[in-house]
């Protein structure tokens, strides 16, 4: 049974109140936060208002998230609740409106329990790039939780929240899900409204959910998925009932194993654990077929041109003029821009702004940005032709185990390589999910399923079947004594 269902049953039997549920999770937060720092903001006044709001609703089956706490990555706007993007430049920014996903969550009775840590503006793979300090992996407090949605993933792993939202531009949901032993889904580009998601790379960004159990993931996805006229890139598509696909057989499904994503650079320990996962899939009656995605080896450079180019433009609005951090001692406009941005942004953000500005500059555009968009098309076509042969594709979510804090932060290229198996999905715009598939030395390892456009139902179906046989949803980290 999913956690939502469990709580709802208690509500129906009047064995527990909304306030008690929230208080229980706040207690978990209080216990874990000193050790992991998953949250940037837990505002008790805000939560009190939210509890009162939900108490005013009459519980019915349409309120699918009634009285359920959801942790929100701090790059998704929440009206009246600090939203910082883990950046000094937005350290005091209180949004005047709710993101569309927040509006939908609230409409279904959810309670925003807090805002979670991330790499500044979602740029990073370890949550070390937060201006407010890193988040730590609850399975080993010396290690990173992955990123950029590290805070949301950890909140699920520790049980600080039963549900969370993150954003995934190059793996920022799936990779931390893998590193923390939870489920994370990156939906099809255009399935979930980006209205109110602080843009990093607009053509790649997509909001997605985290959960411990597939049922819960399906329920929250149902709430946030679907066309939003406020987002011109959201697609006029009516999602199916995702719960309907759970429990159905996956027997006879063809799953592609792209050799490019299993060979180079994947650590032996990861391969070793995933070997038993493949066995489980075979037990489910799935046919595993070796395939090739020849262009994915160009995904990383392609991604770093497109994502940084878009970012350089998207982050131009943080200029110290209209809102956000401003250095007030400047006498002229140009200095005001330079100093405010220079002081407000962290070094990784500045690195990417500079890279993107360079890639879009006159004389370089054709060689960099334009070429990258062409390669992107090839990668998408590669996936399309693969999906003519197989139903889904699988790979490790991350080529490595969760690494130590500080281990890669000084070497950007080494850090960028972490995302090599998740980035192709964003470039192609397809959905993918990371599901816990095992542990090595008490460190979690995730398996990534990728599917064609709008195959979320299939991804949930196989994840559900997989989780039935390989269930880690009851396994909690025990690195902190007494918890």
């Amino acid at each position, binding site marked *: 049974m999913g956690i939502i269902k469990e709580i709802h049953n208690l509500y129906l039997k009047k064995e527990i109140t909304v306030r008690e549920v929230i208080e229980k999770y706040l207690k978990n937060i209080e216990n874990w936060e000193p050790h992991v720092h998953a949250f940037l903001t837990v505002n008790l006044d805000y939560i009190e208002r939210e509890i009162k709001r939900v108490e005013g609703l009459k519980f019915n089956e349409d309120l699918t998230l009634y009285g359920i706490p959801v942790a929100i990555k701090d790059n998704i706007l929440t009206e009246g609740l600090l939203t910082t993007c883990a950046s000094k430049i937005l350290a005091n920014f209180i949004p005047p*409106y709710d993101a569309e996903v927040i509006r939908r969550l609230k409409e279904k009775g959810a309670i925003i329990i807090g805002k979670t840590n991330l790499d500044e503006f979602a740029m990073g793979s370890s949550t070390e790039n937060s201006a407010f300090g890193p988040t730590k992996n609850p399975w080993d407090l010396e290690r990173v939780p992955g990123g950029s949605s590290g805070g949301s993933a950890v909140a699920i792993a520790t049980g600080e929240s039963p549900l969370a939202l993150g954003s995934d531009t190059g793996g920022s949901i799936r990779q931390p899900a893998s590193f923390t032993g939870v489920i994370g889904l990156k939906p099809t580009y255009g399935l979930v409204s980006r209205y109110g998601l602080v843009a990093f790379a607009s053509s790649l960004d997509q909001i997605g959910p985290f959960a411990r159990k597939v049922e819960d993931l399906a329920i929250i996805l149902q709430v946030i998925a679907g066309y939003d006229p406020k987002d011109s890139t959201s697609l006029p598509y009516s999602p199916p009932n995702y719960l309907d696909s759970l429990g159905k057989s996956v027997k006879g499904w063809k799953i592609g194993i792209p050799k490019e994503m299993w060979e180079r650079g994947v650590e032996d320990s990861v391969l070793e654990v995933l070997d038993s996962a493949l066995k489980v899939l075979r037990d489910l009656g799935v046919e595993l077929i070796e395939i090739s995605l020849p262009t994915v080896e160009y995904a990383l450079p392609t991604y770093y041109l497109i994502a940084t180019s878009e970012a350089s433009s998207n982050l131009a609005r943080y200029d110290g003029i209209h809102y956000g951090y401003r250095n007030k001692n400047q006498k002229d406009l140009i200095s005001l821009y330079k100093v405010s941005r220079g002081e407000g942004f962290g070094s990784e953000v500045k690195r990417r702004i500079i890279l993107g500005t360079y890639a879009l500059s006159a004389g370089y555009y054709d060689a960099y940005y334009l070429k990258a968009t062409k390669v992107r098309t090839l990668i998408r076509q590669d996936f399309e032709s693969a999906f003519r042969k197989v139903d889904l594709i699988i790979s490790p979510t991350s080529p490595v185990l969760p690494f130590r804090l500080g281990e890669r932060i000084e070497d950007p290229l080494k850090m960028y390589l972490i995302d090599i198996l998740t980035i192709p999905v964003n470039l192609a715009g397809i959905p993918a999910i990371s599901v816990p598939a095992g542990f090595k030395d008490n460190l979690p390892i995730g398996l990534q399923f990728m599917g064609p456009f709008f195959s979320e139902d299939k991804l949930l179906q196989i994840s559900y079947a997989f989780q039935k046989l390989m269930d880690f949803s009851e396994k909690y980290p025990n690195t902190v004594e007494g918890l």
Partner: protein
Amino acid sequence: MYLPVIGLEVHAQLLTKSKMFCSCSTDHENAPPNTLVCPICMGMPGVLPVPNKKAIELLIKTALALNCEISPFSKFDRKNYFYPDLPKGYQISQYDLPLARGGYVEFEVDSEIKRVRLKRIHLEEDTGKLLHVGEGDRLAEAEYSLVDLNRCGIPLMEIVTEPDIHSPKEARLFLQELRKILRYLEVSSGDMEKGSLRCDANVSVMTEKGILGIRTEIKNVNSFYSLEKALEYEIERQINLLKEGKEVIQETRHWDEKKQITVTLRGKEEAEDYRYFPEPDIPPIIISKEILEEIKKTIPPLPLQRKLLLQNTLFLSPIESEIITSEKELCEFFDECLKLYNNPKNLSNWITVELMSYLNDQKLNFRDLNIEPKRFVKIIEMVDKNEITRPVGKEILRKYLDTKEDPEKIVEKEGLKTVSDLDFLKEIVKRVIDGNERAVLDYLKGKKNVINFLVGQVMKETKGRASLDLVKNLLEEELNKR
């Protein structure tokens, strides 16, 4: 000789109710600063643009009327630069796939039809406004500057011409004709003084050898008059440089309205690299043939066509035709009147003389009037039938326009019908002659013009209600008796 070569970039705000990418009102004229704004046009984090369909339609309407080719596949791009009136740090515009290309505008220069080709028409969003406080009217000179984002995000259509214009006067006439067209199409208010129509000019001079010169771009041209003056100044400046054997530098220059000169704004080296790239938040725009056909149906005849039609079929003079077609509403008024009154020449005379003099005196535009063709024609007919005299007709027109009272009722109420009682008139004539001995003497000495004075006196006595010719005849008759 030096031949000026001029190309214009015209920005016209489109007449939509809401802004280009959000639902804020565009009615910014009298709104207090920063009241017509929302997170989207303020460039808040997380917002996304949703294109205004109406703005796209108005641009297409313009483009079709100007004989452009409409791109079936078009897209928006980001133009990146930092300025306080641009809260996103980029302007959503169109770069390499504008909605329309080619086309031309035809207009009259000294009774000749001149054609200026167009390069492209594209859609973009307007920026906010800065209010500079302290010395000077530029940011660099200000103590501090205030930002008003009411205008930010208003849809803007940029029309770029080929360098087909060869004199400041031609440039002005082109822009005046273009404005007239935009108003006929009801796509833009075209008010330069309010900034809803703006123009930058690129100008160079071609030397005798027929080699294109180095061009400069002139900004801050805020009226038709300024456009002509700025170009005259700039062309003379460039010619003088060339005569002195110096070179023109490629740069952007600012028209200083007070000093009536152009000054350097920024050089070629400081020219910005806008780092255009496709706007990832908006999918490409696909224009179907059906939509084009629908929009085509809404295009009225253009002012020049209308003007030539008046000249060639109704035989109105070029000046009369020009006046009547100067405003779409006036032209339509003429058409309506003509349906009721089949004497175009006389109708035109009443419009271009009497109506226009009223508008000039009151400093009004025709579209500010609320005039009924039926009533207007009635006044003319009363004059035609000698029910009232022309001066009285003119008087009644003014009263009608001031009060909107029925002209016939005005005539009745104020007793303004033409006096046709001969005995009554003769008596007045006698009285006037008796009372103006000096004038009568002058007349009899041969100063025949004096009769006009005497006519005037009679008219005064009759409150203009007598027929001029009749009074003149009666006066002459009476004078000749003496």
